[in-house]
C-alpha cells in the first residue's frame, strides 16, 4: 500500500465497499420477506471493482452499468434511499418505480444506466464517450460489464469504434467466472479476457478484482490516459459473486462449494480491512464506527423505501415521450 495514501481516502474506499455490502444484504432480506417485486442481482463479493474504479472519477464523468448495478451506482455516490425505494417499486425511487433494480437511469452522478440486456450498455457508454470526444469536454466514461457480456456482438462493435477513434472510455470487465450457470471457460477459450483488447489495438490488463487498491490504481492510469486523449483501455478484474446469480438462485448446481469457499476467503472487504489495520492506516474503532453509521444509513434507506407509497396506476402512462 503506497504510503502516500491518506487515511481518509482509504477509509472512504472501505466505507463504500461496506455500504454496497450492507445495501445488498438488506435487498436480499427484503426479497426474502416478499417485499421486493421481481428479482435483483447482488454484487456481494465484487465490491472492490466498483469501488476502486469509481474512486478514480471526477464529478462530471460518466459510468455505464449492468443488470448487476447496485454496486456501481453506490460507488458513484447514488442516493441509497432513492435506490432502495426504486428497488421496491415505489414512487420516491430514482425512476418513480418504473426501473426497478435492473434499469436505474439517472444523469444525476453521470449514471448512464443499469441495463437489463447483457452487453446493452456497452454501445451506450461508448456513445457518451463519443460525445465527450467531439465536444472536447474532458469527461471520461467507465463502462462496466460482466465476463459473459464480452461474448455479445455489442462488446465487439463498441470496442472497435472506441479504439479506432481514441474515445475517452475505460471498459471494466467484472469476471466473476460465470454468466448465470455457464462457466466462462465452457464457452470461451481465452483465459484472460484482457486478451480481447488486442483485437482492437487497445491496451488490455487483467488484475485481481478483489483488491480495491489494485483496481483503483489500474483504472486511474487508464482514466488519466483517456482524459489526456489517448483512447480507451480494457481492464479485466477477476472476482466472484458470493451469492447466486440473482436473489432467487441458490446457485448450487454449477459451482462447487470449494470454489465458493476459496473465493469467500478472498473477500474484498475482509482483505482490505485487514490490510488497513496491519499497515496501521486506521483503527478498529474507526472502522467499527464507520460500519455502525453505514448500517444505520441503510436501515434508514429501507425505512424510507418501505414508507414510500406505490405510484398511482395512472403514472404508467407518463414519461413515454417528452
Amino acid at each position, binding site marked *: 500500500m503506497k504510503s502516500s495514501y491518506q487515511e481518509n481516502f482509504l477509509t472512504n474506499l472501505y466505507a463504500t465497499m461496506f455500504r454496497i455490502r450492507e445495501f445488498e444484504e438488506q435487498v436480499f432480506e427484503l426479497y426474502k420477506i416478499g417485499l421486493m*417485486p421481481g428479482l435483483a442481482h447482488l454484487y456481494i463479493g465484487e465490491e472492490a471493482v466498483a469501488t476502486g474504479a469509481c474512486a478514480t472519477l471526477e464529478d462530471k464523468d460518466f459510468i455505464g452499468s449492468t443488470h448487476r448495478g447496485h454496486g456501481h451506482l453506490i460507488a458513484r455516490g447514488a442516493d441509497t434511499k432513492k435506490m432502495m425505494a426504486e428497488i421496491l417499486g415505489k414512487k420516491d425511487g430514482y425512476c418513480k418505480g*418504473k426501473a426497478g433494480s435492473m434499469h436505474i437511469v439517472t444523469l444525476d452522478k453521470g449514471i448512464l444506466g443499469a441495463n*437489463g440486456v447483457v452487453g446493452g450498455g456497452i454501445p451506450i457508454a461508448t456513445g457518451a464517450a463519443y460525445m465527450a470526444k467531439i465536444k472536447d469536454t474532458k469527461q471520461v466514461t467507465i463502462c462496466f460489464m460482466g465476463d459473459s457480456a464480452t461474448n455479445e456482438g455489442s462488446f465487439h462493435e463498441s470496442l472497435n469504434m472506441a479504439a479506432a477513434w481514441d474515445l475517452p472510455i475505460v471498459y471494466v470487465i467484472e469476471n466473476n467466472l460465470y454468466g448465470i450457470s455457464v462457466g466462462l471457460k465452457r464457452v470461451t477459450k481465452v483465459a484472460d479476457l484482457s486478451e480481447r483488447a488486442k483485437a482492437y489495438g487497445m491496451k488490455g490488463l487483467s488484475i485481481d478484482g478483489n483488491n480495491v487498491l489494485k483496481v483503483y490504481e489500474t483504472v486511474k492510469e487508464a482514466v488519466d490516459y483517456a482524459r489526456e486523449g489517448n483512447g480507451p483501455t480494457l481492464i479485466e478484474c477477476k472476482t466472484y459473486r458470493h451469492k447466486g446469480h440473482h436473489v432467487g438462485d441458490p446457485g448450487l448446481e454449477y459451482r462447487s462449494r470449494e470454489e465458493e469457499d476459496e473465493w469467500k476467503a478472498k473477500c474484498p472487504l475482509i482483505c482490505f480491512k485487514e490490510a488497513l489495520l496491519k499497515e496501521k492506516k486506521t483503527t478498529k474503532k474507526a472502522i467499527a464506527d464507520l460500519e455502525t453509521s453505514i448500517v444505520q444509513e441503510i436501515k434508514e434507506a429501507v425505512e424510507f423505501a418501505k414508507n414510500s407509497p406505490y405510484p398511482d396506476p395512472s403514472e404508467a402512462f407518463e414519461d413515454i415521450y417528452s
Partner: protein
Amino acid sequence: MTQDKFKEITYAQAVAEAIDEEMARDENVILMGEDVGIIGGNFKATVGLRDKYGDWRVKDSPISELGIVGLGVGAAITGLRPIIEIMFSDFMSLGMDQIANQAAKIRYMSGGQVKVPLTIRTTIGGGRSSAAQHSQSLQAWVAHIPGLKVVVPSTAAELKGLLKTAIRDDNPVIFMEHKMEYNKKYSVPVGEYTIPLGQANIVNEGDRLTIAATSSMVMRSLEAAQELAKDNIYVEVIDIRTLVPFDKQTIIDSVKKTGRLLIVDEGHLSFGVGAEIGMKVMEDVFYDLDYPMMRLGTEDVPFPFSPALEFPIIPDTKKIYQKSKEMARQ
C-alpha cells in the same frame, strides 16, 4: 388429442417432455441456448435433458443471441434439427437478422433447394415485475416475416403437442412460451400426440360473442367466459394456436354465428397481432358483424417495473369480462 388418459404436469415439464420425446425419436434434434444445460434452463423447462443427451446435444451457449440463432440456421440446413432457445423474446432483437433475414428466407432464396428445420423457443409475457426489457410479447415482429411459422400455445397440453410438431416441421418455427405459465399444472394426455400447426381450436362454445385469443390470454378468456355465463352471456372462445399459418375459417365461422369479435393478445396493442386477426377476417364477416371488432392488448407503454404500474397495463380476466359485456349488450 383423443387420448383418454391424462396426467398432471407443469407447463415447464410439458416443454421438457416434448423435447425429450423428439430427441429420443430423432438423433438430429439438438438443443442450444443460454443456461439450457446444467441448470435445465432459466425457467427450468429443459431440466434433465443434458444428463440424458450429453453436452453436445444439449449445449449451454455463450450469451450470443445472434450467433446461436445463426449457428442453428447453419446446422439446420446441413442436417440437424436444432432447437435454439432465446431466453426472453425481448432478446430476439439481438438475433433478428438471423431470424428474419436468414432463417426465414434461405429456403426461398435457394429456390426451394434447402430446408431449414429450426425451432426457436422463446418466452413472452409480463406480470413478473421484470420491467421494460424482459416482459414483451414480440410475436408481431416474427409473424410479419414470410418464411417463419409462429406458434403461441395456451395450456401445457397444447404446448406439448404443438412443440413436437414444430420440431418436426421442416421450416423455421418461432415457438413462444408464456413465462407466467411455467409453474402452473395442467392436465396433459399421457403418451404420444401432436397437434398440427394452422388449426385454431374452439375451447368454449357460445353464441353472443367470439373471443379469439393467443397464449395465456386463452385461459384468461375462458375465465371471463365463465363469469359471463353467470350473466347468461355465452361467449365462444377460440385458441388461435398459430399465428402463421393462420386458420381464419374457424374464426369466420364463429363470428358468422355470434356477430361479434373480440381479439385478445398480450403484445402491445398498436401494430400488434390482434389488428391482423381482425383485418384477416374482415372481408368475410363484414356483413355479419353487429358490433365493431374490438381488441385487447398490453397498453402502448414500455413495461414499468412496479407491480402498481404493471398490472394496469396488461389485459386480464376482468378487462376481458368488461370488454365482453360492453360488446355483448344487444
